[in-house]
């Protein structure tokens, strides 16, 4: 244990037993300081030439003990912390947390607040998918989409900034509703953004969808069947790309999602290309939802009646939402005090990352990169 980073993996142990003659295999570390592991993920790869014979993820480099911190903060004080988990989809995290506590308090956000929540969450989903697309394409070697997506994501962040002052870790919602009324011209901004971004999504697709190299690099890469997805608890676009039409927004609607008409895009093969297509389609569906929400946003209060000091009754609740990466759940245990007795976050990235080994086995090193990219993990959320 002299090295802080070396957790001895079973792969390494196996390797050390090998003699020269059968030592065609090479154990290399990918990460934590690696350009393509999307943060501080460490993957120990066992390679036969370029072929991956097995791999093991080592995580925890970004562990900040969010769940422990929660036990020492009041419900309100903990709210900003959840933004730091999946920092590219902070709004979704906040939504899940607020709804879970609201549920525990047995209250409900007013409809206007719910509409604002839906608009911001879907904008955030779009931003998250754009960031995914840019980095994923960069991993596969296409440099240009990164800049296109970041350019367009900027517009979303501008709306966030105008709404609540923050761009990334927004802390947009409060328990019981929203803190801020929409600013003057919010609807106009959002509508303008919708007309701006729709052709941009076509632009991304133009660069990639039919690009021979892109298709070759992603088709039949990192294939995972629906059965494996379910067994491994994989959710979100990865599950949908395997052909399971399941989206919490439809299955167990929360916020105002019931009012909106949208589809759940699914794939058939569960390979990287399908996941790409599913996410692209999801981006368009998000635009549809935002359009409907912003057209029909009701007037009214934005905050339910919540006492200043929140003391939920003794009990426990599990609430989950469809974050951009999959099912984001909060399991909250209250002991009746102002602080949660225990908060457990069920992070989609953490569970999805488990599938990496299965998806990469037998593929090439370059595919590992593609698969990490397509899983769309955020290490802040994996490690919490």
């Amino acid at each position, binding site marked *: 244990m002299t090295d802080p980073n070396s957790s001895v993996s079973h792969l390494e142990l196996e390797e050390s037993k090998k003699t020269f003659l059968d030592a065609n295999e*090479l154990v*290399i*570390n990918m990460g934590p300081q*690696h*350009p*393509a592991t999307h943060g501080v993920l460490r993957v120990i790869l066992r390679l036969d030439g*370029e072929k991956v014979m097995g791999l093991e993820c080592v995580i925890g480099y970004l562990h900040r003990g969010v769940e422990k911190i929660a036990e020492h903060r009041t419900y309100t004080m903990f709210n900003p912390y959840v933004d730091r988990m999946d920092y590219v989809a902070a709004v979704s995290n906040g939504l899940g947390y607020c709804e879970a506590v609201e549920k525990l308090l047995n209250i409900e956000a007013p409809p206007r607040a719910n509409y604002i929540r839906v608009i911001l969450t879907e904008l955030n989903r779009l931003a998250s998918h754009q960031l995914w697309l840019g980095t994923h*394409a*960069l*991993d*596969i*070697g*296409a*440099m*240009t989409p*990164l*800049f*296109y997506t970041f*350019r367009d994501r900027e517009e979303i962040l501008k709306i966030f900034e105008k709404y609540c002052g923050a761009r990334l870790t927004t802390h947009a919602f409060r328990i019981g509703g929203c803190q801020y009324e929409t600013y003057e011209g919010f609807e106009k901004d959002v509508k303008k953004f919708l007309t701006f971004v729709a052709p941009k999504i076509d632009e991304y697709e133009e*660069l*990639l969808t039919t*690009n021979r*190299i*892109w298709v*070759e*690099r992603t088709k039949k890469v990192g294939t995972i069947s629906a059965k494996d997805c379910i067994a491994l608890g994989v959710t979100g676009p990865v599950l949908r790309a395997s052909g399971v039409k399941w989206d919490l927004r439809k299955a167990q609607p929360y916020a105002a999602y019931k009012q909106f008409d949208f589809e759940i895009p699914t794939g058939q093969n569960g390979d990287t290309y399908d996941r790409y297509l599913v996410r692209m389609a999801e981006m368009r569906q998000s635009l549809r939802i935002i359009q409907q929400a912003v057209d029909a946003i009701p007037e009214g209060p934005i905050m339910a009646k919540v006492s200043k000091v929140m003391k939920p009754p003794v009990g426990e609740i599990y609430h989950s939402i469809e974050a951009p990466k999959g099912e984001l759940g909060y399991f909250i245990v209250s002991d009746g005090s102002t602080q949660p007795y225990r908060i457990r976050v069920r992070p989609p990235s953490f569970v999805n990352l488990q599938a990496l080994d299965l998806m990469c086995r037998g593929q*090439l*090193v*370059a*595919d*590992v*990169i593609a698969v990490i990219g397509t899983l769309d993990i955020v290490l802040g959320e994996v490690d919490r």
Partner: protein
Amino acid sequence: MPGFITNYLDKNVHVTPGQYGSPFWALVYILLVFGGVSLAVVCMNWLERKILAHMQVRLGPMRVGPHGLLQPIADAIKLILKEDIVPEGADSFVFLLAPLIILVAGFSVYCVIPFGPTHAITDMNIGILFMLGVSSLGVLGIVMAGWASNSHYPLIGALRSSAQMVSYEVAMGLAVISAVLMTSLNPAGTGTLSMIGIVQAQYAQHTWFIFKFFPLGFIAFFIFAVAMVAETNRAPFDLPEAESELTAGFHTEYSGLRWSLFMLGEYAAMISVSSIAITLWLGGWMRPFPNLLQGPTWDLAFSLFPALTFFGLAAMTFYSTMRMPKHPYFRIQTIGLGAFGGVFVLIALILLIPRVRDGVQDVYWFVAKIAVFLYLYIWYRGTFPRYRFDQLMRVGWKVLLPLGIGVLMATGIMGLRTEIWDFVHRLVHI
């Protein structure tokens, strides 16, 4: 010493310095080429960043000098001031030697590249063989760099890189042979391997070899064009340096100036393989339509191109100068940019002098063709994702190699079609 120059200029303008046999004159050319290529690499560096940036809706370097013009210099200073790290456990001798080998291999190719009928360091009658051989030396440098680093990523990068270069070299060789075949389509039936000879053969046959036996020449050129991108480890074949997989491939462990030698070698190789493609298929130094648009008027018109190019560049520079922010903070930069435009105008004016005008013709057209290739390199990089290693090998061995053999056979048959026809004719009549 001026004696050498005047002597050479007066008597031997029809031979290259190498053929002239004067070591001094050869040295002058060598330094010219060496300096010119280094300068071209610097320009290419800036241009690549700028062009790529503009393709990607961003500005690229803007801070050091007007429009980042001094950025390469700033980079060079930075690299010089960087620590040179030899990792622990590395084979330091091999580690230090590797970039040198790559550089020497990359630059030696320039010995045989004809920038004009006489503007070559030397003319060898095995020019093409020399070029193939020397450029294959680069593989050694890469393998050595990767092996010496004593680190996994460089080793894998080096193995990939050498396997890749070696695979594409076969296809490249076959494509080159079909160009050589075309040179022997003259009454004497004798082809040549000399680079200058190949361009002259294209002149004699009144066509660029890319259009010869259409589409055979074009296919051969296409094979070479693909293989040369792979040989230089550029996108979409930049697997050895695939930063998302292998961080930086075989030069992961290199730093500072030593690292910059790899970059220098890579860009020099890009320019050299482009020149070879131009020499073999695109008429080398010849201006467009040297046979069709003949006569003094056309000669004059074409000879104005260099000056016009520089006037165009100057106009662009002046336009940018006008568009510079009027804030006093930018005054020095504005003046600098204006001065830059002034330099362009000056160069353009010099190029209008008749003697100079005629002298730079060949070099100008050659460089212009290279510039197109380099732009393509940058364009590929902005457009394509990266191939995976097995796909790369498949393209090399299963697509380009059979294609190359096929083109070679077809070219041979096409070249002897009259003989074949005669033979068949005779058979029928017997």
